[in-house]
Structures are given as C-alpha cells and as structure tokens.
C-alpha cells in the first residue's frame, strides 16, 4: 500500500464512521475492557443479544474498550437512529431489558441508570458524559479513542485520523521528527521521566546496521492498569507510536514486551498487528518509503524487575531477567549488543498526537519541566475509581477530590509510584503532580498508580506489603537488595505484631538508606521508598504500634481482637454459619460466644453482622 491508497482507505473509513453516526439501525456499545468484563460485561452482552433475539429487533452490538470510570462498569451505551449515544452505568444482565424497553417499546430515553450522553449540547437535561465530575477536569489525549471506538476495527482508528501522525513523520527527516519530539517536551511515561528525545538521539547517533525498538508493556506495578487499558481500548495508537519511534531511531525490528497476565490486550495487539501487515503498514518499504519495520510480541513470564530495561532485554534474550551495570546504556548496546530503545506504552501512544497536532500544541499542557498529560489509575478507597488522564501540574487534591470524589472515611494518604514510590500525607494534597515536585517529597511519578487510602488502612501494614512485594521480586543479584529488603520486611513484621522497640525504627531507616545506595538497578534503589516515606510522614502511627501495642486503623491482625457484644447480639446465628473455623458458638436467640483461640480474624462474622439490620454492630474489632 502506498500513500495514496492509505488516503483512499481512510476516506472509506471516514465514510463508514459517519454512516455509523447516522446509522438507520440502533447501535449498542458494551464496555468490554478487562475491568468491564470483571464487572460482568459478558453477561450484560448476552442479555442484550437475548433481548434483541426475543423481540426480533435489528441492532448492532459493538464491544469497546475502557472509557475510564471503572466504578460505573459494566457500561452500556445505546445509540438510536438520529440520537446521540447515551451511556448507562452499572448495567447488569437483569437491568438490560428495562433499559432497552424504554427505547424500543416506549420510544423514549430510559432515565434509570443513566450516566450521560456523547452528543454536543443539551439533550433533555441529560448531562454530557464528558461533563460528569470524574471526566470534566480531564484532558484526554492518549486516551482520546478509548471506549469510543471498536478497538478491533482498524477503520474506526483510521476514521479518527489514525496513522496520520506516522504519515506526517514519513514526510519529514528523522532529525525533524526528533526535533518535534524534543520541542514537545515529552518525558518517559514509564516512571523515570527521562526525556524521550535524548534517548532517541543517543541511539540514532550510534553507528549500527541493526537497531531495535521495544515497547515496554510489562506493567508490573500492582495497582496500575493504564497500559492495559490503552492497549485494550486503542491498540493502533501504540503501534502507530512504534512506527514513528522506529522511523526516527532507524530501527527495523520492534518488540512489544507484554505481561502474560493481560490476555485480552495480547489478543487485541495480535489482531491490530495483522491489520497493519495487511494494509502495508509493516514490512518492507512501508507506504512506498525506504523505511522497513516489523513488530513481534514477546510475552513476559512474570517478573516485576523485567520492567527495568536491561532485565527486560535479558529476558527477551532467553535469560533470567537480571539487570546489568550501565553504561553501556541500551541506547548504545542493548538487545543482542545493538542500539536499543525501550519506550513505555503511554509514551508511544502519545507520539501520534504530537506529530499530528504539533509539538507546541502538546507542550501547551503541563508545567515548564513536565509537559503534556499523564494517565493515572486512581484506585483504593476513593469513591470514583478508574483510569484518568490529566495535564501535569494538576494537584493531588484536584485528582482525589474533584475527579475521584474523595473518600468515604477520612483521607489518610496517597501512594504514588507503586512499590518504588512514596506515601504522602494530607499536608501534600496541594502538591502539583509533576516529576520534580513528587521526587522532592520522597515519592515518584512512577508509571501512574495512585492508591488512595483512608483511616481504615494501616500505614505500617501497607509499608510491610510493599516491602514484601519488592523482597519477593528482588532478582537477588545485589546483596543490599536481596538481604536488606528481607530484613526490612522482618522489622516491619515485628512492628505490626507489636514486638518491636523504638531502636527497630532507627534500624529500619538506616537499612533503607543502605539498600537504596547499594543496589544496581531501580528496583533496589527505590524499594525502601514506601517504608522510608511512611516512616517520615506517619511516624506517630509506627510509634502507636511500638509503644502502645495498638494499631489505630484496627488492621494488624496480631494487635486486634474480635468480640461479641452480648448486649447487642440477638443470637441470629448468621455469624455462626459463616465462621470458617467454628470459633463462634451458641444457641439461637442467645448471645454467642467467640473463642479467641480458634479465631483466624478473617472478618466474615463482622461483615455479615453489618449486613443484618437487627444484629448489626454486635461484633466489633478493637485494637
């Protein structure tokens, strides 16, 4: 395919897209990203199919990716001829018939479960979807297509200016593209924030006849899913970004290194790569130019450390994923000893937008040193959870309260950057989110995980959790990381068990600095961050565990007891039935007994008691 024929194909795609907008048959869109499916989107879709069959109606069902507000999943949009697309939230299988009846039987817009519409202007007082509180403050650049297009239909992508950014770069020299990326100010979205153009320039200027490009989709940070959502919702954006990057650095072979835990993302990528090949966007002399490039998928086998560049390369080469010393940096000697660029999914997904709309447009968002937008997975105890994209420089408060709707119980902390990041207390809520400000206070931007916790979460327990994670994921090469993280976990376990003394906290701090300074790669160098930052900002909570032997959040198992309040217990026996160890006994209608020696503190009795309006609150957990 050459430039003319792709233009023809795009025109057809635009026509098809417009046709779809004013289609004479109704369209029903189902949010079928991994999160939607987990919330039951597959059952919702079956119910829609069943409904249409039963009523003998003609309508088309389209599966789309995640649009962001995961807490509203499963999302179902209905688009009747001549009407904008209208979105319904938390649509389980049993809600389908009621919602569709409104449209198909009564010829009106069903009002229940209504989330918003996708048209312009006012519609019957229904809010626009993008005006919802969670979406309004967002700037959607890299996520612009997610949830709106069918990710498996390349025509949808083409119709929305797909591959125009790549065509634009083909009409420029590699130096001009590099310069555009430099002026845009984009920095690596994988976490470290290294200027993308600088890495590229090093690679391109290294003499070699074989250079490699690797897309890092090994999203190992627990609590983060931005890359998964982007690939599931708009795979071609990432692949187009790979074409632009490969053209600029002069790579002829590319890899997508993706977690095996993301089967749907892998499926969508495979399909998209096949479509590219069929359209001549991969292979020899792409679009009639002298640029040739191909992409292979490599499935990561599950190791957090493989997010580190040299470890990732080792694993592609079929070795244990252990980092090596740098220099030489992969941009000079990487995969098979050749110059290699590793870019994060989001960095690549952003490139088409920069090329299409210009560097200045992109640099118009963000701050002086951190340009553009960043996606975050906003999760934890916040009311509105999901995937968001915001301009850099926005404050944590705006993200947590305006977008996330705040927490139900009092806000305690936000963890940014996952196991490499830091835990920030309330005093930092007005901190602008950018690379510099977060680093200054001991956190990092990271890949985009933002975990919000409230007064029910124990900070010590969370620090123990993160240390336990990095200890398990340490590759074992550097002693301070391999042994140091283990000792840090042991100290934190002692604190959680109420067996530590104050000198242990000093040891923890000292050890943390040793691990930081004595480790080769980013995993070890950042592993102590969660422990050190929580120790710094939440010292009083550590002291409670150490001195008073109390866990203020009532979380640490060995510091809490479960009790039945005899005066409140009606003897309904529901807790007796759910107790997996038989720790609760007692005849019906009499206050029950709880045998502490048998109790495994699994919380089942507490939960079921709270469901029960009569006996509610009869079981308490106290520290």
């Amino acid at each position, binding site marked *: 395919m050459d430039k003319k024929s792709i233009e023809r194909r795009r025109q057809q795609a635009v026509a098809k897209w417009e046709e779809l907008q004013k289609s004479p048959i109704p369209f029903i869109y189902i949010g079928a990203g*991994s*999160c939607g*499916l*987990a*919330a*039951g989107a597959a059952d919702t879709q079956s119910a829609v199919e069943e409904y249409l069959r039963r009523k003998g109606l003609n309508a088309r069902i389209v599966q789309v990716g995640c649009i962001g507000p*995961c*807490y509203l*999943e499963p999302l179902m949009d209905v688009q009747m001829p001549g009407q904008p697309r209208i979105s319904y939230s938390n649509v*389980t299988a049993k809600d389908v018939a009621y919602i569709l009846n409104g449209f198909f039987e009564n010829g009106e817009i069903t009002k229940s479960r209504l989330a918003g519409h996708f048209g312009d202007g006012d519609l019957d007082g229904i809010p626009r979807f993008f005006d919802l509180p969670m979406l309004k403050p967002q700037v959607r650049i890299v996520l612009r297509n997610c949830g709106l297009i069918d990710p498996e239909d390349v025509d949808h992508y083409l119709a929305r200016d797909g591959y125009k950014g790549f065509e634009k770069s083909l009409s420029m020299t590699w130096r001009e593209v590099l310069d555009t990326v430099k002026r845009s100010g984009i920095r690596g979205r994988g976490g470290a924030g290294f200027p993308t153009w600088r890495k590229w320039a090093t690679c391109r200027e290294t003499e070699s006849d074989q250079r490699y490009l690797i897309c890092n989709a090994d999203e*190992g*940070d*627990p*609590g*983060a*899913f931005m890359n*998964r959502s982007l690939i599931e919702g708009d795979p071609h954006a990432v692949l187009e970004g790979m074409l632009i990057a490969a053209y600029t650095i002069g790579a002829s072979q590319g890899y997508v290194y993706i977690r*095996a*835990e*993301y089967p749907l993302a892998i499926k969508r990528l495979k399909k998209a790569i096949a479509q590219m090949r069929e359209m001549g966007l991969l292979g020899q002399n792409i679009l009639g130019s002298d640029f040739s490039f191909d992409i292979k998928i*490599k*499935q990561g*086998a*599950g*190791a*957090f450390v493989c997010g580190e560049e040299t470890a990732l390369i080792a*694993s*592609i*080469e*079929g*070795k*244990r*994923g*252990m980092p090596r010393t740098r220099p030489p940096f992969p941009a000079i000697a990487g995969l098979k000893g050749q110059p290699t660029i590793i870019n994060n999914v989001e960095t690549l997904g952003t490139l088409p937008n920069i090329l299409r709309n210009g560097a200045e447009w992109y640099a118009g968002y963000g701050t002086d040193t951190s340009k553009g937008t960043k996606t975050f*997975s*906003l*999760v*934890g*105890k916040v009311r509105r*959870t*999901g*995937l968001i994209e915001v301009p850099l420089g926005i404050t944590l408060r705006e993200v947590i309260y305006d977008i996330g709707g705040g927490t139900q119980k009092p806000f305690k902390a936000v*963890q940014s950057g*996952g196991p490499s990041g830091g835990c920030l207390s309330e005093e930092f809520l007005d901190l602008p989110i950018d690379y510099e400000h977060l680093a200054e206070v001991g956190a990092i931007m990271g890949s985009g*995980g933002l*975990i919000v916790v409230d007064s029910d*979460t124990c900070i010590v327990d*969370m620090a123990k*959790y993160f240390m336990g*994670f990095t200890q398990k994921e340490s590759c074992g090469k550097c002693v301070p990381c391999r042994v140091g993280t283990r000792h840090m976990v042991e100290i934190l376990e002692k604190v959680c068990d109420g067996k530590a003394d104050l000198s242990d906290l000093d040891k923890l701090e000292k050890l943390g600095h040793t691990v930081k300074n004595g480790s080769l790669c980013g995993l070890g160098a950042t592993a102590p961050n969660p422990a050190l930052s929580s120790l710094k900002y939440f010292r009083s909570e550590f002291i409670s565990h150490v001195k008073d032997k109390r866990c203020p959040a009532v979380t640490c198992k060995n510091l809490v007891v479960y009790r039945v309040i005899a005066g409140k217990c009606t003897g309904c026996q529901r807790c007796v039935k*759910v107790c*997996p*160890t038989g720790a609760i006994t007692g005849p019906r209608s009499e206050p029950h007994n709880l045998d502490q020696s048998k109790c*495994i503190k*699994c*919380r*089942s009795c507490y*939960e*079921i008691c709270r*469901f029960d309006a009569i006996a509610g609150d009869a079981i308490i957990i106290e520290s």
Partner: protein
Amino acid sequence: MSEDGLTTIGQEFKGERGDLIPILQRAQDLYGYLRPDAIRMISRWLKISENEIFGVATFFAQFRFHPPGQHHIKICLGTACHVKGGEQILTIATHRLGVGAGETTADGKYDLDRVACLGCCALAPVVAFDDKIYSQMSVLKIQRILDGQKID
C-alpha cells in the same frame, strides 16, 4: 508423553536462544506445567543445559513444576486489592481449602495462588476462578464461591 505436541511447537521456532521463554510458555500451555521430560527435550534441542533452563524457568512466576489442579483460584493481592481486604479473602481460601498459596489440594481439585495484580484495580478486591474474574469481592462472597454457589 506425546512428543508430537512438542514437535509442533518446534516448528514454530527457529531454535534460537531467545526462543527459550516462548517455548517454555508453549510447553506449559500444552501440559499444564513444565514436565521434566519436556525440559530434557527442550534442552537437547536448544543446546542449553537443563540446569540453566530450570534457572531461567524458576526465575519467572508464570512457570509451574507440578501438575495443575482442575480449577485455578487466583487471589489478587495487588495494592488496591490489599488495601481493600484481599489478605482476608486469602485467609479464608487458605483455611477452607486447607492449602497455602502456591499449593494444590490433596484431591487435585483446586490450585490456590496469590497473584501480584490482575489489572482490575478499580474493582478491587478481585479473585479469578479459572478464567472468570470476580470483582468487588468480600469475605462472604469468596465463601459462597467456595460453597459452589453463584454469587451474582
């Protein structure tokens, strides 16, 4: 063992060192785990010692070295799941099944695993039962799943 399966896999790859992990992944798809005889064959084919193959395979969380149970229960303990009570869900599963994380029940029916993140963090805590992911789990819902009841 059916060598045919491995031979078919052999045709998909050139037999380069870099193919080791994809080949191990395919072999595990085929048998459910990395059988010692499969590793022996791969070792001869790629000319990498069995020792080294075990070294690589044990490094990554994905590879198993024992036959899998009939059903696979994965309790997600990513950060979001952890702060929303994933640990207690694991406690119950451990207690009810009588095995720890990473083990298989004596009757070979269930595998229990704790996993780092399934990527559905906004709907935490989540549990995967074979290929089905259950979101917004609770200590009561996991008990119902283990009782073999539908929870929705």
